[in-house]
């Protein structure tokens, strides 16, 4: 068990709460910096995807996890970012500019999609974002003059003043830098009034209002930030895949992103990363597992979907706080053993919160 004696308010404000944090995060940092020389090309690519999805995860975490506004439309946000990036960088924009544009445009779209959130919430909002997702995907397919329609467009490597980040390693570091930046943005928001306003809205709109929180403003803000991050991730995604087409940003993508946040652990920044790691590594694990499974089972097509589904169900049933929630418990256990009290984490059953009542 670790006891921390607080002597100044700063200790609650700084990000690294104690030496342990400092140590482990430095280790992680060094590992990430060394990764290109540790991993082969393939695994580096996977790691890059993890970073990209983490950025989406952060955005989704802010929206669904902290502000309590579910979205089944983030696939479309990813698409908006990806297409903006593809079009602009193919048009010769240097990548810092085009990525900023991607984030900005997606943020604007996000603000628009946020409009229903000012009137409806919960399920209704989810369906609204779902509908929006379909419409945007259709727009990608129809607006051929810009998006190349269903044919899709290939994306050239990010470039600035003639210098191309063609190599996977260079691109990996680009993703790393942007991921770190996005993370800092989120944690900063969360330890300041803005972040607390989001949480307030999530837990009780009515009293948030009586605290002087302008719902319209902060909901729109949440949507914009979330969309901006997703758009930025989309820009990276476009470069990573080098080819984008409308059907990549469909409902399935949106759902995957949402599940990523859920599995990672809604309402925790770590969750965004853990979820991304899960989303990327799960298919790999299944691929590996296939070698040990009986042929008939291994060859079956649905296997992946089944395992995926089961994992989701298991998490929501037994670990609503996601991977991070589980980790916290394990850690506490290790710290407190042998003093660990059984039922430290048992949640008291609450009555079903009505979603119809606004």
């Amino acid at each position: 068990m670790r006891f921390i004696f607080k002597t100044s308010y700063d200790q609650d404000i700084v990000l690294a709460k104690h030496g342990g944090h400092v140590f482990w995060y430095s280790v992680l940092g060094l590992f990430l910096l060394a990764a290109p020389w540790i991993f082969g090309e393939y695994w580096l690519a996977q790691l890059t995807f993890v970073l990209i999805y983490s950025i989406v995860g952060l955005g989704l975490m802010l929206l669904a996890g902290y502000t309590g506004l579910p979205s089944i439309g983030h696939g479309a946000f990813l698409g908006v970012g990806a297409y903006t990036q593809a079009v602009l960088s193919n048009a010769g924009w240097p990548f810092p500019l085009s990525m900023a544009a991607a984030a900005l445009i997606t943020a604007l779209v996000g603000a628009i999609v946020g409009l229903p959130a000012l009137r409806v919430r919960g399920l209704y909002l989810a369906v609204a974002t779902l509908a929006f997702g379909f419409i945007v995907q259709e727009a990608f397919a129809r607006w051929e003059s810009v998006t190349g329609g269903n044919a899709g467009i290939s994306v050239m490597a990010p470039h600035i003043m003639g210098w191309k980040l063609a190599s996977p390693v260079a691109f990996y570091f680009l993703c790393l830098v942007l991921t770190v930046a996005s993370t800092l943005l989120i944690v900063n928001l969360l330890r300041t009034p803005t972040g607390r306003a989001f949480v307030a809205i999530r837990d009780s709109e009515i009293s948030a209002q009586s605290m002087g929180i302008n719902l319209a403003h902060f909901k729109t803000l949440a949507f914009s930030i979330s969309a901006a991050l997703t758009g930025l991730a989309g820009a990276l995604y476009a470069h990573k895949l080098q080819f984008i087409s409308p059907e990549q940003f469909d409902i399935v993508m949106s759902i995957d992103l949402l599940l990523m946040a859920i599995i990672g652990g809604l309402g925790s920044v770590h969750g965004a990363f853990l979820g991304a790691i899960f989303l990327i590594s799960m298919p790999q694990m299944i691929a590996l597992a296939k070698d040990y499974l009986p042929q008939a089972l291994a060859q079956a097509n649905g296997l992946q979907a089944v395992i995926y589904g089961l994992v989701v169900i298991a998490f929501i049933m037994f670990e609503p706080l996601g991977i991070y929630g589980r980790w916290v418990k394990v850690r506490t256990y290790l710290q407190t053993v042998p003093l660990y009290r059984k039922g430290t984490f048992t949640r008291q059953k609450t009555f079903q919160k009505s979603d119809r009542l606004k």
Partner: protein
Amino acid sequence: MSDVLLSARDLSVSFGGLVAVNKVSFQVQRGEVFTLIGPNGAGKTTVFNLISRFYKPTSGEIDYAGESLIRKAAHEIAALGIARTFQNIELFENATVLANLLVGRHIRRGIGFWRSALFTGRARAGEIGARAKVEEVIDLLELQHHRDSLVAGLPYGVRKVVELARALCMEPKLLLLDEPSSGLNVEETDDMAFWIQDIKNELGITVLMVEHDMALVSRVSDRVLAMNQGEVLAMGSPQEVQAHPAVIEAYLGAVEDVALLRRSVS
């Protein structure tokens, strides 16, 4: 004391034909504790919701410190210095007590999105300032050892106090308390009474409250307004109002509330 802080004139609101509040007028003096009593469904909470602008009055006026509240949006009320608590607690369940109280400082945050995002020096300073203020309230209401615990895990009594604390963190001029003692046991009710007096005397905050527990009411209130079915029955000192025939009649009308009138129920 002729200094009016809040005044309602001919306040009426009806939901689909049902008249919840009907031509209610009253004035709250600066620095007093003004209490609304009455049987369930008398429209007391509705009056609160009218003041916090959750509802829009069908007719009538509410003036606060000289300006009309009618034209304000719900989230603009707080900035005027009006804080409130809720009948069935409305805390931010999945946040720590500390976080809840810090939300109370929202109107005084003084930094926008970008300063927050970059956590500039001013943001840090703001945080420390807010924290200092919050700690004062924590000391006042003796919440020290709940500081870092999640609201969801706290017993009802403590939540009630946390909600009061959150309201105080707003440094309001007018504090609306909706049934501060409901669900509290005798000791807790006693503390509550003590704190309400402190809030009035030490902090100089005007209190407008809805309360059933007549013991508490008579102990802290300067003036009482009795309502029934959306209408004003009587107004005056606690004793006068309790003695008022119309009031007694109204309570006898609703049997279970007679109990509330006679003894304080937890």
